[in-house]
Each structure stands twice: as structure tokens, then as C-alpha cells.
């Protein structure tokens, strides 16, 4: 009850921090899409390169986020951004690479060879095949990767409050340090709801971007 009162009294602050939170994730995941999707497409050309890139990306994601924040402090301090918004965004970009690269790679590599052959046989150039056939077919899986990345990084951003990046994690960190369950619960619930909301929203986007011809079979 106390928590509800606290939350109600601080709606403005919750909204402000939620926007902060979302903006970090949105900016970083958008940048990650721009880097990871082309990488995922490019590595379909060579199994060896693909293995190496995916291995690197999967090692990256194994590093706990707070450790990654820590490791970036000495690297970014010379530029005056040891803590705060910049390392948070960079960490999320790094973490987002694996799910997006891996899904893009797998989806493009999994395109039915018959479709590729049909495309070549009818005289499509490789960029025409990519645009007209391969990417439209891969979109649902690529979007699933984006979704994974976004949801995962809402959690990472919560921890980024400890390096001064703001966001809803601020409630949790203050709740812990001030032993204030009201802030603690408010933060935990808000960040959870945010993650669920983003997940559902991106599921919707995924559905909208998927060609109708592909979703028919999935529904049937």
C-alpha cells in the first residue's frame, strides 16, 4: 500500500526515468541493428568467418554486464565518458550483436536453396534476390533477434544505473542503498512491466513487418 502511494506520488519521476531507460535501449539497439544485420548478411558468404564472428559475439555476451561496465571505465575515461550514458549505450550495442547477427545469419542461410535457384534461374541479380526474396523471408527471424536484444538490454540498462546512466534502475539502486522497499519495489515492477511491454510491442512490429504470405502457414 505504501508502495502504491509512493508510486502514485512519483508518477512524474517514474515516467521521466522510464523515458530515459527506453531512450538508452532504443538508441543502442537501433545502432546495433544497423551494424549487426549487414554483418549477419555478409558472413553468410563464408562459414569460417561466420564461425569466428559468432564465437566472438557469443563470448562478448557471456561477460556479465556490470563487469563490462567496469572494463569500459578505463577505456572511455580518457574521452570523458567513463561512466554514464555512453558506456551504457556501447555495452548494449555490444550485447545486441550476438542475437541480431546470429538470427540474421541463420535466417539468410536457411532460405530454401530452391528459392535461391529459382531466383538465379529467372535472372535476378544477387542484390535483387537479397531485397526481393532473402530479406523479406528473414525479417521475422531478424526481428525476433531484435526483440531478444531489446528485452535483454532493458535489464542491462537497469544495472547501468550504477554507472550513472539513469533510468528505472535508479529506483532499485536507491531503494537498496536507502533500504527503502517502496522505491525498490516500484523500480523492480516498473522495469519488469517495461520489459514485458517492449516485448509485446516488438512482437507486434514483428508481425506487421512479416509478409502475409509467410504468416498464413504459421497460423494454420
Amino acid at each position, binding site marked *: 500500500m505504501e508502495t502504491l502511494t509512493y508510486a502514485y506520488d512519483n508518477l512524474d519521476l517514474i515516467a521521466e526515468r522510464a523515458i530515459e531507460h527506453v531512450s538508452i535501449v532504443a538508441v543502442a539497439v537501433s545502432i546495433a541493428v544497423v551494424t549487426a544485420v549487414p554483418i549477419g548478411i555478409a558472413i553468410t558468404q563464408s562459414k*569460417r568467418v561466420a*564461425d*569466428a564472428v*559468432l*564465437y*566472438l559475439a*557469443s*563470448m562478448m*555476451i*557471456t*561477460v*556479465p*554486464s*556490470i*563487469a*563490462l*561496465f*567496469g*572494463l569500459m*571505465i*578505463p577505456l572511455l575515461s580518457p574521452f570523458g565518458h567513463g561512466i554514464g550514458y555512453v558506456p551504457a549505450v556501447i555495452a548494449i550495442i555490444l550485447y545486441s550483436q*550476438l*542475437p541480431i547477427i*546470429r*538470427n540474421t*545469419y*541463420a535466417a539468410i542461410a*536457411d532460405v530454401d536453396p530452391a528459392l535461391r535457384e529459382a531466383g538465379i534461374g529467372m535472372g535476378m541479380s544477387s542484390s535483387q534476390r537479397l531485397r526481393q526474396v532473402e530479406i523479406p523471408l528473414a525479417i*521475422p*527471424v531478424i*526481428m*525476433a*533477434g531484435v*526483440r*531478444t536484444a531489446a*528485452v*535483454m538490454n*532493458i*535489464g542491462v540498462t*537497469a*544495472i547501468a544505473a*550504477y554507472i550513472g546512466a539513469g533510468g528505472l*534502475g535508479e529506483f*532499485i*539502486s536507491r*531503494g*537498496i542503498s536507502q533500504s527503502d*522497499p517502496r522505491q*525498490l*519495489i516500484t*523500480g*523492480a*515492477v516498473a*522495469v*519488469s512491466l517495461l*520489459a*514485458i511491454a517492449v*516485448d509485446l510491442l516488438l*512482437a507486434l512490429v*514483428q508481425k506487421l513487418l512479416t509478409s502475409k504470405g509467410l504468416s498464413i502457414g504459421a497460423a494454420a
Partner: protein
Amino acid sequence: MNGASAERAWRGRPRPSAGAGRPVRTSRTAALPWLLLAAAVGAWCLSSDMPAEILSYREDIIFLGRQHIELVCWAGSLAILTGLPVGAILSRPAFRRTSEFILQIFNLGTTIPTLAILALSMTILGIGIVPSIFGLWAATLLPIVRNTFTGLRSVPAPLKEAARGMGMTASQVFWRVELPNALFIIFGGIRTALAICVGTAPLAFLIGAGGLGELIFTGIALYDLPMMLAGAISTALLAVLTDFLVGRLQYYLVPRGINPLR
């Protein structure tokens, strides 16, 4: 929807249950990134006195590292011990109707950030080791349950039918046919889960359970770089090492006939 949700809460490693997932081969290609890393570390060691300062935290690293590993072991083994049976029970035909619903809830659960789980655990159980283990357990449990469930469910029906047709009892079908064939996917879940567990363990410091997180958070708060790096580097190495070991276990323990990595 299911394919997409199986993609969620991905932490670290290929999971065969994820439709698009492809095994990432660790051999051969592993050398290059490691060499680069070694070169970078070497250059840094020669150019700075930071390594010596970090090593001055050796005793703290060992003490807190042991705490850290204990937390992970407790939470991880409890999660495996509970997650496997729950996943197996949910996969039984008797739960056909309810399991999809329960799995949906679980999928929703995996979107909840681990920091939030720990925070909620603290509000219920207070501070200390027990709430930490509980929080880590909760965060670790879901991938195990989900992969156990999907692994057992995705055993091809003809295999089960053949087994029944040869006169196996329901429990024989489970132990001799379903479980072995689901093993790779189940192991994938355990691997993901342990990666989450190790990754979340540094946060346990925040609710009073110690561990390597103590060096990182204190180091950040005091802007003590060597202390912070002592924690960050050892946490990162521990996470990479754990994942590597579980990966090897998965490689060797899952029989070749059903192991896409071999």
C-alpha cells in the same frame, strides 16, 4: 509466437530449441580472438603499472571469488534439481492443456530483468545469502524448465510410437527414448541458465551476499580503478570459463547421434 519466444532471454550460447539457432563451433576459430586479447593484455601490462595494483587485490579476489562460486553452485544446482522435474512433468500428456499456458507465463517471466528479480527477492526475504540464492535460483530456473519441456516435446512422435509398439512401459519410453533424445536441448537450457546465473551473481553483492560484485561496485563507487578492474576482470573470466566448461560438458556428455556439435 513460440519460435520467437524461444529466442528470448538468450544469454550466451546456441540453443537448439531456438528454431534459427545454429551451433557455434568453438574449435579452431577460437584462436584468433584469444590471440588478439592476449596481445592487448600484454601491451597493457608493459605500458602501465595497473596490473601490479590489480594483483594487490589477490586475496580479496580469492576470498570473494569463492563466495561467488558458492552462490553460483547453490543457485545453479537447485535450479537444475527443480527445473528438470518441473519441465519433465509439464511435458507429460496429462498437462497438455495447462502447459502451454504455464509456459507463456514462464516466457513472460524471462523478460523480467535479473536486477528486478533480486530486488523483489530482497523485499520478501531481506538481505544476505538466502535471498541471493533464491533470486539467482528464480532467474536461472526458467531456461531449464523451458528447454526441458520443449526438448521432451520435440522428440519425434514416431520414435515414441515405435518404443510403445515394442512394448516399453511409459516410464521406459521416458527414460530410454524421450530423455536421451531431448538431452542436447536440455543441456542447452542448462548452459544458458548457468550463463545467466554467473552473470547475475555479481549483483548479489547489492543485497548483501558478497561475491566479486563487491570489488566492482565498491570500485565504481570509490572510483578506485584497480579495485574495480580486479572484480570486473575476474568476474568476466569466471563467466567465460564457466560457459566454456559447460560447453565442453555438453559436447562430451551428449551422445554423438543426437549432438549437432559433434
